[in-house]
């Protein structure tokens, strides 16, 4: 039992002694002193320890909340000057002029949503394909290594994607892919305007594609996990009726896991929205909204990373913090939706 006491978090021992004193009962202590009943003493210590430990863990849990409130409070405090000065029109103004100190959040918001959209358009089908491959097609001995390899992609720090994107990927796109896009897709009536302009290499499309590579492993591994929640009985009965693998995936697995897949996609979206380092290198950082995805744009996080340390005027700093607040609110909503969807899936899985 003595060992217990030592193991209880050493840093907090002073407070522990406090608590013992608070509930010190002189009569009982005297009694036990006289009788010298060690069992009674240790029993008491155990119960006190339990109370204390419960309090400690509860405090730690509450501390997690404190972090979030701290972050939100700092963001709101920092963005107040800008929000008071520009009012709600801050959100739908495109102008971003540090010289005249007129700031609006529309271009970064647009860029954030547009890059994430491109990333999702590419990563969702590919991620689903990988998940289907892993659960239905892959020979079992390759299943684990490939699954791990794809998850490892998620572990590579974003600054590495950024450097890779700037020095390798963007030049590659500019030299080989974008001219092709301009010549082919650029001439298609209806969507041609999306692919207009000179091939810069960096721009909204490049940023979206880098994001796609970054969130791909998330989508793949979450959807694979979700696919594995499908009861084998359901799949087997479909196979028993003569369904092909694709028919099982399309008519059994996907409908059954729809909510979970959407939740996983939203989770990946949340990550894509907040990504900073990789985007900053390849987006082109222009506070403009261009129709063409080959043109440069900016995102909220890229604007903060680019300008925060250089911003001197209070309104400029405050506008950037306000951008941070908007980003936080957007990711909060997306992640909250994702969690609620995934939770409802868990409930159903539990019910089955």
């Amino acid at each position, binding site marked *: 039992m003595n060992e217990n006491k030592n193991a209880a978090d050493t840093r907090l021992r002073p407070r522990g002694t406090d608590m013992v004193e608070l509930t010190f009962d002189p009569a009982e202590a005297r009694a036990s002193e006289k009788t010298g009943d060690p069992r009674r003493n240790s029993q008491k210590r155990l119960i006190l*320890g*339990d109370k204390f430990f*419960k309090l400690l*863990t*509860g405090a*730690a*849990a*509450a501390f*997690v*909340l404190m972090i*979030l409130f*701290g*972050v939100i409070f*700092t*963001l709101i405090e*920092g963005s107040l000057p800008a929000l008071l000065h520009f009012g709600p029109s801050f959100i739908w103004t495109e102008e971003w002029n540090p010289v005249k100190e007129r700031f609006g959040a529309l271009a970064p918001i647009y860029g954030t949503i547009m890059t994430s959209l491109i990333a999702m358009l590419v990563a969702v*089908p*590919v991620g689903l*394909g990988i998940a289907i*491959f*892993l659960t239905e*097609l*892959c020979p079992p001995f390759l299943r684990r290594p*490939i699954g*791990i*390899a794809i*998850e*490892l*992609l998620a*572990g*590579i*720090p*974003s*600054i*590495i*994607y950024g450097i*890779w994107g700037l020095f390798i990927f963007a030049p590659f796109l500019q030299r080989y892919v974008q001219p092709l896009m301009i010549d082919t897709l650029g001439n298609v009536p209806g969507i041609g305007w999306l692919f207009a302009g000179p091939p810069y290499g960096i721009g909204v499309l490049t940023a979206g594609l880098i994001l796609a*590579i970054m969130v791909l492993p998330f989508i793949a591994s979450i959807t694979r996990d979700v696919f594995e929640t499908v009861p084998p009985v359901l799949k087997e009965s479909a196979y028993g009726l003569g369904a*092909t693998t*694709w028919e099982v*995936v*399309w008519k059994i697995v996907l409908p059954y896991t729809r909510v979970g897949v959407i939740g996983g996609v939203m*989770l990946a979206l*949340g990550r894509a929205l*907040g990504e*900073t*380092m990789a985007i900053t290198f390849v987006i082109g950082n222009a506070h403009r909204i261009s129709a063409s995805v080959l043109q440069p744009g900016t995102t909220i*996080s890229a604007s*903060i*990373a680019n300008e*925060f*340390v250089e911003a001197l005027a209070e309104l400029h700093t405050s506008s950037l*913090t306000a951008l*941070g607040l908007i*980003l*936080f609110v957007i*990711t909060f909503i997306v*992640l*909250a939706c994702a*969690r609620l969807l995934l939770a409802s899936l868990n409930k159903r899985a539990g019910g089955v």
Partner: protein
Amino acid sequence: MIDNALYRRRKLRNRFHMMMSLATAVFGLVWLVLILAMLLVKGIGGLNLAVFTQMTPPPSASGGLLNAIAGSLILTFLGVIIGTPVAVLAGTYMAEYGRYSKLTNVVRFINDILLSAPSIVIGLFVYSIMVRPMGNFSGIAGAVALAILVVPVVVRTTEDMLLLVPNQMREAAAALGAPRWTVIRYVGYRAAKTGIITGILLAIARISGETAPLLFTALNNQFWSTNIFAPMPSLPVVIFQFALSPYEDWQRLAWTGALLITVAVLTLSVLARVLVSKEAK
């Protein structure tokens, strides 16, 4: 006849979609191979003993990354030491004492949000609660920023792992008269140990490559510095600065550093997975 045509069409469609799914898997793996190959090509050229024995050099001079590596180790270590106890305790509350309480639901929700919160915002937060009041950039501020990133990862795994521990084991211990916290420590933690360690390893992997939250907190240092109350160098920040410089020596060191970080992160992730699979057996 009609049946046959239908059968063939179904077969064909199946084959097409399976090919697509194979193609996507190959596509996904190709990126991993491409990125790693490029890192190896660019990074391995600069890899030599000096990288681990010398300090970051001034431009157009030879040197290494010793101070940055040491700084990264200290920052990561402190970040984990600060973040883990709080996170393990919080996870314990959620899985044990407060399994059905309102607080747990709220914390779980918030924790999942923090898990994906933009790390640059965390950097701004720590700048305003530590750097400004303390009057200088410091390693400890960087460590706190990293700790805030550690917390959600470890909270999540601790809770998940403790929830996996069968209730019968808890009941058996409780029947012997052990109070709750003894049960948690001797039954819960013991059973969930590997899982929690895995979570910590993943958290280390996550923070060891973080750049954004260190830019406004730990800053950087050209020299050897282990004083946690002074600006402290770190590998990601050095990579960031050197990669964007015009000097070839610096750029080469940046690629080498990038290779080191990636290898470290991948090793940690693999280690975590090996632990999990061992436990599963």
